[in-house]
């Protein structure tokens, strides 16, 4: 028999459940005094470079109802297209930009909202530029493994048309599920878990 590989297996996922707020946004859940503030609530400060934008929307189930108990996290590059991460080797990202945000859906409306900056372009592994985008990760009761998707910007038609990922999506009518439309100083991005307009989710 050949030697063993000794690889481990990834810990299996389990749903975040209905009480995810206790662990990830305890102040939002009314558990005061344990942490000074919830993590991921401030992505920008007064010195952050780039165009300030808001990203807001809802996560909608197969019956057309907004999830009012979900939690959304986003991860994006800064205005120059650099990630504030040790794995970013092309340069140093804006020290006044967190890159990561976390937001529980509003308990009454299901609305999530992030105040951030518009990201710059990040290269694909083959060197082509990707269109500006924001990575989304959605967890909730009833979601057994966190869902990954991406937001692209509706006013970046040229970059979107050349994007290496968007351009290889076979069912062209589904591409629009990843495009956030500009509304005022922000972008609207609703995520549909099921139905004819089901959002594209990625296996990253």
């Amino acid at each position, binding site marked *: 028999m050949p030697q063993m590989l000794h690889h481990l*297996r*990834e810990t299996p996922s389990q749903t975040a459940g209905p*009480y995810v707020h206790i*662990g990830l946004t*305890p102040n939002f859940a009314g558990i005061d005094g344990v942490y000074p503030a919830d993590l991921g609530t401030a992505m920008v400060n007064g010195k952050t470079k780039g165009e300030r934008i808001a990203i807001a929307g809802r996560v909608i189930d197969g019956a057309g109802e907004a999830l009012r108990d979900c939690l959304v996290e986003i991860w994006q590059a800064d205005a120059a297209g650099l*990630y504030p991460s040790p794995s970013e080797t092309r340069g140093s990202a804006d020290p006044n930009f967190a890159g990561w945000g976390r937001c529980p859906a509003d308990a009454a409306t299901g609305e999530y909202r992030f105040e951030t900056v518009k990201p710059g372009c990040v290269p694909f592994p083959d060197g082509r530029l990707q269109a500006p985008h924001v990575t989304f990760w959605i967890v909730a009761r*009833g979601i057994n493994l966190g869902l990954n998707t991406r937001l692209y910007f509706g006013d970046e038609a040229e970059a979107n048309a050349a994007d290496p990922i968007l351009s290889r999506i076979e069912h062209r009518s589904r591409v629009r599920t990843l495009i956030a439309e500009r509304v005022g100083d922000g972008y609207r991005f609703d995520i549909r*878990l099921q139905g004819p307009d089901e959002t594209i989710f990625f296996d990253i």
Partner: protein
Amino acid sequence: MSTAGSNSSPETGAFWPRDRAWHPPPLTPAYKTSVLRSPQRALISFSNTLSEVTGPVFGQNLFGELDNDLIHNFAKPGESAQGPRIIVHGRILDERGQGVPGVLVEFWQANAAGRYRHKKDGYLAPLDPNFGGCGRTISGVDGGYAFRTIKPGPYPWPNGVNDWRPAHIHFSIFGSGFAQRLITQMYFEGDPLIRTCPIVNGIRDPAAIEQLTAPLDLAATIPMDSMAYKFDIVLRGRRSTLFENRLEGN
């Protein structure tokens, strides 16, 4: 920000593909909420880009003294949470078996009676005035982590008419890349409710359920103080930067 792993070279390789047959599938009808919340179309796959291999960093300066002590982090001065005192400890590893340092681990749980401090929890078991139910820590240089808490109670939940969750602690884990992001639950060795739970049984392979079941670890107990359970967590592995990715400038 400084991290426990900041003196080692950053990892930049792509992640090994996720084995989705090992995880519960999106649609597990016995867990009723999954029916309307499970995407039905095939996921679209693409090779990792920088957007997936990078991820946020959390520094040691984030943590308060009691963040990893659920017995005391919500309790009034001089008081403590009620219930069996336990230590939960283990290592954050990747699929290559290497410890992952600098990982933010967040956890939350019901109190010893099975009640959450949450306005949507209507279970008639009592709240413990000295128990909040949340904590966090960061893994050390070898990937090790530990926290102190009380053993949570099982609780009933509205799914079938008589469904009870096994005792569990919820975990949220960040790796070094955002594609490693994971939420899961730890169960306790010997709990008969594990095998009847529709959420647990969304996992098809019994060995994967075993992976979520923490053994009693008598060697790590503190005599006359706390029992201990060991829970190792495995994050997705990365390819070697040197051989699988083009080097900078090549």
